[in-house]
């Protein structure tokens, strides 16, 4: 296990560097004076040109790109993400306030996806070729094909405008006394819309994973021994079938992020995605650079965690050097 862990971590290092390189490329390619994205604008405005030239030299902005990259990276390690060109605020501060807001939405959506997707996927697999199976499979395909924003608009139209059941924008009622119930009511629609796509993807994977295990010899053997369907399913099928789902969960995060960007826009949810869309519209690469870094590193960590969890659950992974290919 130790060897596997080390090898896996070792592979992640160049990927991490690659992510920072993409983020830096955004800064390097941005039009305008690069110092605007690196020094607090309120300080910059008060200083003499000599002082600014001094900082420019310190940051290596007069040197070749590779030197600039190394200087930027050493600042990044110390938590210096620079400043937004458009809003003039610190990128790090902005991300710190926005990220928890997004995580709340994404966490609720993921929970919804797991709670709905895995049981229904199992149901479809157990009743393969039944009407229920066809209905569920068609529904998942429809959900995977429907763009999140259309789903969101439909949800607002139905539940917000016509039925007037739920609030359709923001995180809480403006001007009202903050309460948990109010916050949860605001979370229901966006989390469900975002979660449906994840539920559909998880359902598809759970179904095919279960079908694969159901065909295996040890399941036939277990049935042949005279074990009840329930015991066969819980002990011999489900446990084996859920292992591949671990890596699906790891690969769900990029989907979740993309969905969150769009869902936050539709429901005016003031998270990181909402901010990213505004930054793109404002032509603000230094802010998007921060989002790309946070998301890239987050996805890298989650795939790493999924791989390690997989190796814990399925020892064969540790001993065969063959790499899993997932798309």
């Amino acid at each position: 296990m130790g060897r596997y862990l080390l090898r896996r971590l070792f592979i992640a290092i160049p990927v991490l560097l690659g992510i920072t390189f993409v983020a830096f490329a955004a800064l390097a390619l941005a039009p305008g004076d690069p110092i605007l994205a690196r020094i607090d604008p309120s300080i910059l405005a008060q200083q003499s040109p000599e002082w600014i030239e001094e900082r420019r030299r310190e940051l290596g902005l007069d040197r070749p790109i590779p030197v600039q990259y190394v200087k930027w990276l050493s600042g990044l390690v110390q938590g210096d993400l620079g400043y937004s060109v458009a809003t003039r605020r610190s990128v790090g501060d902005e991300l710190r306030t926005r990220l928890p807001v997004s995580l709340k939405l994404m966490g609720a959506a993921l929970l919804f996806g797991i709670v709905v997707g895995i049981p229904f996927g199992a149901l479809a697999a157990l009743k393969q070729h039944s009407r229920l199976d066809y209905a569920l499979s068609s529904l998942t395909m429809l959900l995977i094909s429907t763009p999140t924003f259309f789903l969101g608009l439909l949800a607002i139209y139905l539940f917000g405008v016509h039925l007037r059941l739920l609030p359709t924008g923001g995180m809480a009622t403006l001007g009202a006394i903050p309460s948990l119930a109010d916050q949860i009511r605001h979370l229901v629609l966006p989390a469900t819309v975002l979660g449906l796509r994840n539920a559909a993807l998880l359902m598809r994977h759970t179904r095919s994973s279960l079908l694969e295990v159901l065909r295996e010899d040890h399941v036939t053997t277990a049935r042949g021994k005279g074990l009840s369907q329930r015991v066969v399913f819980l002990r011999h099928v489900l446990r084996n079938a859920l292992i591949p789902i671990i890596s699906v969960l790891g690969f769900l995060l990029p989907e979740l992020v993309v969905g969150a960007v769009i869902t936050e826009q539709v429901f005016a949810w003031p998270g990181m995605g909402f901010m990213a869309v505004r930054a793109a519209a404002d032509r603000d690469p230094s802010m998007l650079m921060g989002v790309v870094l946070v998301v890239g590193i987050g996805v890298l960590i989650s795939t790493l965690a999924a791989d390690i969890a997989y190796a814990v659950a399925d020892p064969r992974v540790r001993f065969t050097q063959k790499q899993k290919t997932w798309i």
Partner: protein
Amino acid sequence: MDLTQDEQRPARTRRGPGPWARFLRHRLACGGAVFLGVIILAALLAPWVGRHDPFHTELERLNQAPDAVHWLGTDLIGRDVWSRVIHGSRTSLTVGILAVALSTLIGSLLGALAGYSGGPVDQAVMRATEVMMSIPVLLMVMLFVSLLGPSLASVTLVIGLLGWSSTCRVVRGEVLVLREKEFIVAARSLGNGHARVILRHILPNTVGPLSVIATFGFANAILLEAALSFLGLGVPPPTPSWGGMLNEAQSPTVLAGMPWLWMAPGAAIALTVLAVNFIGDGLRDSADVRSL
């Protein structure tokens, strides 16, 4: 079909129906192909099918509900919605086809190179795909749009340039198996160069999985373009695009009072992507590609 490929397949497929027959048996895939055919035809014949000029604004007919003249009503500045939906298919299909062609080209060449050479080249390409997979394409496109500004060309180019990672991984996996086969060894020992072996002997044998992944990639590219246009970062107005039409529906008055403005383009995206996904499912089952 050559012998080497048959060996790895279960015996029943040798006598059973070929890939085409298996695809035709997949009812949903056939339905999807017919629907996509209709959409392509509508895109080609848009000026006739659309019946109206998609850019023409009728100032005396703003925000009209659907009637006999304007099948899907008119929008906020009096343009015919039916015509804009029909012309919007051109945008979606153009971006989808060009982007997927570009990413398939890059992905298959890089994947073949990685799988065929192995060693440090393989390692470098694989790490690069992992970087690409860690940053969702939508975010990357947003980053590039913030640098270049939105336009039809930049959206297509960026989706195409950034969407190759899954193609690359799949082709690499296929090539790893193929390069050990006898016919490749034979082709090499006959004096063919590496480039010729890759292009003439290896890549043609990855067409099955490649067509499946390109089909799903096509669906994804359409969704991406729609999402970007919806966010106001894609195809700029006045060019009709399905995602852009939904962008206009974000105001509460349109959303609640004029559903004809956004329901039709939304349904058009969903149905087109659904059709393409069904085709992909059918191709996967008929090409016998398990891992996808």
